[in-house]
């Protein structure tokens, strides 16, 4: 098989597995598995992007999502106290509505994708998309770069202000206490972790 043919076959396989992995996200009973199925979906899409010549973006997607999905998995275990998925997990609401909405969204978008007549102008194999992306991002006006940078800075400050117990001042751990086992009891320095708590998920500092 020639290189382009191989790339075509790989694209079919990767595209298919990204959809299967995405479906598994909501069909597994373990939080960590759900997070990593989502990562698998992202990695498959990232590799499709590499095959489509958007090499830098595809690899950066994998790099970014590996970190983000691990954080998601850690958060899930922290909140749910269900580390290995031993408790069956099905927490859904408005299931029928959600299914209908999902199918309608898929059908609508897929119809547009198949029916619309897109011009056939493939990317030039000799071009250097990474260099072009760099020129676009950091070239004359740097508009996108600046906007994204400022947005991310604002997000960082906002997220820390919301999440930190003391806002963005002081050590994040200062005066922090584990949430009480009894949901009605107030959280405070006196709340002691129960043995169950300290065991599996709670990473107390």
């Amino acid at each position, binding site marked *: 098989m020639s290189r382009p043919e191989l790339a*075509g076959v790989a*694209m*079919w396989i990767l*595209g298919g597995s*990204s*959809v299967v992995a*995405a479906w598994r996200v*909501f069909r597994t009973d373990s*939080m960590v598995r*759900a997070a990593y199925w*989502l990562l698998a979906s992202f990695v498959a*899409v990232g590799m*499709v*992007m590499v095959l*489509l010549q*958007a090499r830098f*973006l595809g690899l*950066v*997607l994998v790099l970014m999502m590996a970190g*983000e999905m691990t*954080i*998601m998995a850690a*958060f899930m275990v922290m*909140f749910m106290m269900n580390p290995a998925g031993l408790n069956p997990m099905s*927490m*859904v*609401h*408005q*299931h029928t509505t*959600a299914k209908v*909405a*999902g*199918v309608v*969204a*898929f*059908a*609508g*978008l*897929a119809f547009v*994708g*198949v029916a619309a007549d*897109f011009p*056939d102008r*493939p*990317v030039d194999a000799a*071009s250097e*998309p990474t260099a072009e*992306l760099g*020129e*676009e991002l950091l070239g004359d006006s740097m508009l*996108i770069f600046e906007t994204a940078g400022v*947005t991310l800075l604002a*997000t960082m400050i*906002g*997220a*820390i202000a*919301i*999440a930190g117990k003391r806002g963005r001042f002081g050590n994040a751990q200062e005066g922090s206490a584990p949430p*009480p086992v009894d949901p009605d009891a107030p*959280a405070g320095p006196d709340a002691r972790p129960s043995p169950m708590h300290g065991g599996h998920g709670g990473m107390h500092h």
Partner: protein
Amino acid sequence: MELQLLLVVSAALFGIGVYGALSQQTFVMIMMGIELMLNGAMLAAVALWAMSGAGAPKGQLLTVIVMTVMAVEAALGFALVIGIFRTRQADMTEMLEQLKG
């Protein structure tokens, strides 16, 4: 042909994301649904850039923006979940039926 395939795949990713975001009760799982929608959008953007847009340099910027949106969504999502968990010990939507603090 390949373009159509990739667009159908991206539509499927988006559809699964819509289903997840609407059906899940846990905040983090809802975020996963949203990320899947963005994943589909990104795939469609890159597929159209590579196969129908002749690889115009500006096309890749759309993907950069989607990635920024993902980062913002994740950071703020986690921050809100932590904030809510701190004050209400809630990690599911049904626990927040009243929005009073």
